[in-house]
């Protein structure tokens, strides 16, 4: 029909928007700007792909439909089939020669933990020669790892499952802050703690989870977002909710009461403990969208300390990588920008799923920690809505009128606006063995989005 429009959206010359307004009709003006250099033609090709709209709708729905239940805690050797000498790490694939300081440090500590060497320093030769050791991304094994993300066979893993499909994802147990393996530290105290986690904490959590029954991690995420956590750099409410669920079964596990008390103290004193559940919950959701032909949705963002890589629903398991950036933020003690390693870790999976930096507005308490102000935080979450396909009705932000978090990063929208995903992150020391030096904000290297777009365009052309 040809009824009078009540509203006009105008993209382009303001003059035409003005002319509509002069006729007393409401106008929404799009603040259009040229896309990233050289992407016009690929953008048009992908926009015209007849598969795109439905593929993206399916990808978004698949991600949002997943619920993640914590169903078990068990060694990586059992649940991932890792064998002696096999090492998983964060980010896209990398070899020892290009590995950054913190990744090297974590691998060296991991080798000592597994008894491949007595002194972590001796592991350098092992990795240089590649004799009896192999490296592989966590993402290739249904797992995610924070920071260096190193996983060895004897480490205990959280096991998350989507009850509708039985699919599973995994993540190691969080070690706390400061001098820890995931930040590249490998001193004797680091290894002592990891052994205690292997001998005491892991088995106790296994009994507790098996005794309590599945724990609804997605549900806890829903609540913690309302309680001031963005589930990347702040997980305090989530950690306490997990303890609330597991503490009774831990106490009645029959294990030594001093060990139980120590475990409760360790988890309760580690505000990041829940991060290692948020991450695999996000991966579980995003993996549901993998391999959807024609979809431009990002299903993983991950860094290995050298490269930043993304994977996209419509491009299979291909990684699009560029140099990882150094975060901007605040430093611990005397550390400064020269001490920081480029961005590292699989934890950007939280942003990929719409929390972390994307949900900054919900976590005013961490805004300063990552070097921002409250208005910046609100603006950041709003800005991320410009590059995402939709909202998550389950995860909402009270201060934004309970608007759902921005969900499903769209490669085309990033190329069109030049707005890069905002990531909240910790910073590891550049030198192996140092540990954490700060926390801050970082974005992916811009070039990887046009690269992914070019591949999507190539696939589109091959279909037509």
């Amino acid at each position: 029909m040809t009824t009078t429009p009540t509203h006009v959206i105008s993209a382009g010359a303001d003059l035409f928007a003005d002319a509509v307004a002069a006729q007393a009709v409401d106008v929404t003006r799009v603040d259009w700007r040229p896309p990233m250099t050289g992407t016009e033609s690929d953008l048009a090709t992908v926009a015209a792909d007849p598969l795109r709209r439905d593929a993206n709708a399916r990808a978004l729905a698949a991600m949002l439909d997943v619920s993640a239940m914590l169903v078990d805690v068990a060694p990586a050797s059992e649940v991932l089939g890792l064998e002696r000498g096999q090492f998983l790490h964060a980010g896209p694939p990398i070899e020892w020669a290009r590995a950054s300081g913190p990744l090297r440090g974590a691998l060296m500590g991991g080798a000592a933990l597994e008894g491949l060497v007595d002194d972590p320093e001796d592991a350098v030769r092992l990795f240089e020669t590649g004799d009896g050791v192999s490296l592989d991304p966590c993402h290739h094994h249904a797992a995610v790892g924070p920071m260096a993300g190193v996983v060895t066979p004897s480490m205990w893993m959280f096991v998350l499952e989507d009850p509708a499909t039985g699919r599973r994802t995994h993540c190691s147990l969080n070690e706390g802050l400061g001098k820890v393996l995931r930040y590249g530290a490998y001193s004797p105290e680091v290894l002592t703690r990891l052994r205690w986690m292997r001998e005491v904490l892991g088995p106790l959590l296994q009994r507790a989870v098996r005794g309590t029954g599945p724990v609804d991690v997605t549900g806890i995420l829903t609540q913690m977002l309302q309680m001031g956590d963005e589930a990347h750099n702040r997980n305090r409410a989530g950690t306490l909710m997990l303890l609330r669920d597991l503490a009774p079964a831990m106490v009645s596990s029959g294990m030594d009461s001093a060990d139980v008390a120590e475990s409760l103290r360790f988890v309760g004193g580690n505000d990041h403990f829940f991060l290692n559940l948020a991450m695999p919950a996000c991966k579980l959701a995003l993996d549901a969208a993998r391999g959807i032909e024609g979809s431009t949705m990002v299903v993983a963002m991950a860094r290995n300390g050298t490269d930043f890589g993304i994977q996209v629903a419509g491009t299979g398991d291909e990684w699009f990588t560029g140099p990882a950036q150094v975060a901007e933020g605040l430093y611990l003690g005397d550390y400064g920008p020269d001490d920081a390693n480029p961005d590292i870790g699989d934890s950007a999976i939280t942003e990929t799923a719409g929390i972390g930096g994307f949900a900054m507005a919900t976590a005013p308490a961490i805004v300063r920690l990552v070097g921002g102000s409250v208005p910046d935080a609100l603006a950041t979450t709003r800005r991320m809505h410009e590059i995402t396909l939709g909202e998550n009705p389950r995860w909402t932000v009270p201060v934004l009128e309970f608007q759902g978090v921005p969900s499903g990063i769209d490669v085309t929208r990033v190329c069109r606006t030049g707005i890069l995903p905002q990531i909240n992150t910790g910073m590891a020391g550049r030198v192996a063995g140092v540990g954490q030096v700060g926390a801050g904000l970082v974005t992916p290297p811009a070039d990887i989005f046009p690269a992914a777009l070019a591949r999507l365009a190539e696939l589109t052309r091959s279909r037509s």
Partner: protein
Amino acid sequence: MSRPDTSASTSHVELRSGAYADSVTLLQVSRAVQGVDGVAAAQVAMATGLNIEVLTEMGFEVPPTATANDMVVAIRLAEGGSLEAALAGVDRALADANRRSDSTAEVAPHRTTATAARDTGDAIVLVSVPGASALVEAMDALDAGRDVMVFSDNVSVEDELALKRTAAERGLLVMGPDCGTAVVGGLGLGFANAVDPGPVGIVAASGTGCQQLLALLDHAGVGVTSALGVGGRDLSSEVRGLATREAMRRLDADPAVELIVVVSKPPADDVAAEIRAYADTLATPVSFALLGAGQPDLTEAAEAVLTRMGREVPTWPVCGEAAAPTGGTLLRGLFVGGTLASEAKLLAAAALGTDAGHTFVDFGDDAYTAGRAHPMIDPTLRLDHLARAAADPDTAVILLDVVLGHGAEPDPGTVLAPVLAAIDKPLVVAVIGTDGDPQGLETQVRALVGAGAEVHMSNARATRRAIELVQSVQPSQGASA
């Protein structure tokens, strides 16, 4: 960015990488800077090929590294002028241009049509971004289930087909690309004349053709409820009337529409036949104004519509009188309206022959608008050519159009008048406008007549008059027509 010593040169060119503003905004910025004391000439523009050409002609040297993504600021100072002040003027004008009338500063505006549509209820989408990006924005509209008008030109026919096929699958309407004019339920979009609602519905594969009909019907007292532009290529053998069909279907379904008029630049014959056959399946009668050799001109088409509706055909107004030619033999048509230019060319070809050297330039053509505002907004290029035509001893008569309505220049008559007054050749002007247009039809006509022009409301009548004047200096050639 380092700026050169202000005393060292009177000509200044700088590139601003990563800065962007649309061509209309930059036109306003350029004008504001031209008004700064001590500035002799100023041009702020994106460094597209055409704009570099314009800047070069103005005597500026644009660095060879400039790309279409760079903004060029070019300033020539008058004696004693201050570059400092001129550049401050640039920055001020750019800042002013970015200031929105509604000050919802807290919430950043949407960056894509997709997100704007997500937060907006039932809306129609108007896309006027550069052609290479138009498909992407327009596809957002279709994805959100909205009709879209694509004003942008320089859009490939492949992109047009992708949009129109998608729209056809979803029952949506794509007006354009290169759709200059639409009236949807009384709301004018792009360049549209202000008309009263009424019994006529127009489907237009021609922007200024549509405007000519709107203006003539309005003068005859017949209102138009909707005029749906479909883009100049819609009736080509590639696009095959995809949008024309949907627009006709909608007008047929509108009980207010008693007669549908389809106006188009010369269509592909077989497509025209298909559309005529489709018209026969509709309940509402359809009149056709398909331009082409031997076909009725737009004014005759408007007269046929009036007759078909049982209305009287009025006398189309003429004001002023062109002087007699004093030399030269050629007709120079300088148009902002593409269809008006084609109409004039067709009429002249019939009367004067095709290879006689008469020229009909359409400044709205893609070649003149890549990275530049449409001549209905930015008169610079036409004014430049007008001066050249006036100085050319071969020119016998100059024929112009002035198009009024929403979106067009706020006061074209005042801009043209001093230039026309200085020309000693006969001037015939077609003014396409209505009494309701924001520029004021009467004011515009008065300014043009005052500058010595003979002003017609009908482009065809203006053209015939110009032909007559040319023939008066070469009677032997005109006799055969």
